[in-house]
């Protein structure tokens, strides 16, 4: 069904229910009575003395005619019929949005209430924060015999829940680096916002990625310096497939030549594949995943 046909079908159903008018009166299970008032007052913590002297709280009006634990559905109930119709059209979720009650007078113990309901309006489709849907408003009238004692406009949003974004990624699912005695200084640095480069304690050569021995002089004496985090893009790849845990595709992977002279592989952020240029100036930024992991990423430096 097209959107226009769907809207027409919804409005036709609404009109059909509106012309049926008020439902037949449905009677409260019990007369207005003190024990139920006491239960309500106790639960709400309300302490007005008038509620112990034969008067019922106005906000209880609807309580008297609630369907109870096993409600009998009136097949002509317009709210129920409209809800069912919208559910069949895919508007499966419901949310109460407004309830406007008026009280003509306070009810007294011993009075017998009845309620009628009419479909007031169906408005939509509207795009809302929770999804697209229709606002369905019913009007209920409570009577003692023929005297109107309370009214209610009740509005619900009957909506199609927004689809969870199928492309949404959970960044905490990212592949974890192997952290060992050779590399832990590096990841300790990223947690603190420092880009640390391993340096040979003997010949002072810088190297990345970290390792146990100096590839230049073979010494095991390891120390580090903190990089400026500034460099240029030496090369890059655009990874489009397959999916990478915790990463949105396409994923831009850069080989960055830092001003200190070592190269480092890291994600390029804040740009699309068309924005990437070899030799563009870049600087480090931090992508905090959780308490234990912060990844260095690079963005364009202006």
């Amino acid at each position, binding site marked *: 069904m097209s959107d226009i046909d769907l809207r027409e079908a919804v409005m036709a159903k609404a009109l059909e229910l509106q012309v049926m008018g008020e439902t037949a009166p449905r009677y409260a299970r019990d007369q207005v009575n003190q024990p*139920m008032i006491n*239960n*309500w007052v*106790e*639960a*709400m*913590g*309300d*302490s*007005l*003395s*008038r509620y112990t002297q034969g008067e019922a*709280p*106005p*906000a*209880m009006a*609807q*309580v008297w005619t*609630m*369907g*109870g*634990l096993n409600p009998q559905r009136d097949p002509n109930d317009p709210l129920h019929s409209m809800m069912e119709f919208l559910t069949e059209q895919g508007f499966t979720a419901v*949310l*109460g*949005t*407004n*309830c*406007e*009650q*008026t*009280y003509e*007078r*306070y009810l007294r113990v011993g009075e017998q209430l009845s309620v009628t309901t009419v479909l007031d309006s169906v408005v939509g489709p509207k795009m809302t924060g929770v999804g697209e849907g229709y606002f369905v408003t019913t009007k209920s009238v409570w009577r003692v015999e023929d005297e109107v004692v309370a009214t209610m406009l009740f509005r619900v949003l009957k909506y199609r829940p927004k689809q969870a974004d199928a492309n949404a990624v959970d960044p905490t699912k990212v592949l974890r680096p192997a952290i060992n005695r050779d590399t832990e200084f590096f990841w300790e640095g990223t947690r603190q916002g420092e880009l640390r480069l391993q340096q040979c304690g003997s010949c002072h050569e810088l190297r990345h990625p970290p390792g146990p021995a100096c590839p230049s002089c073979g010494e095991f004496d390891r120390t580090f310096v903190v990089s400026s985090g500034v460099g240029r893009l030496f090369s890059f790849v655009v990874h489009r497939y397959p999916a990478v845990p915790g990463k949105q595709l396409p994923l831009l992977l850069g080989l960055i030549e830092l001003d200190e002279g070592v190269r480092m592989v890291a994600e390029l952020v804040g740009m699309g594949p068309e924005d990437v240029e070899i030799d563009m100036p870049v600087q480090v930024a931090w992508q905090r995943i959780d308490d234990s992991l912060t990844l260095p990423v690079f963005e364009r430096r202006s």
Partner: protein
Amino acid sequence: MQIGDTFAAWELPITPTLVVSTAIATRDFQDVHHDRDLATSYGSKDIFLNILTTTGLVERYVTDVLGEEYDVTGISVRLGAPAYPYDTLTFSGDVVAATETTMEIKVVGQVSLGAHVTATVGVRVR
């Protein structure tokens, strides 16, 4: 009281007992108001206050302040964020209209997620 007068705030801790006891006292047996397992299976964080209770608490807040001098003639509520257990529902009220015999009070009930309820309560001298 006159236009511009404000009501003292009322902080109500929401407990599972409050949610369940008020749901049953208002004869609302929908599972989302008493069965946490089912409520979470529908995507809700927990059980939550039902609308009849929200209306009842708004009424209580206003009559706690005004006492028995006034009748409540109407309550309009606009519903917002759900009121879950372990949150606090904080009511505030402002007189927004007044005549010799009537007043309109705007009531806001705030939870940590935002406004749970924005209401207008009409009252009339008895």
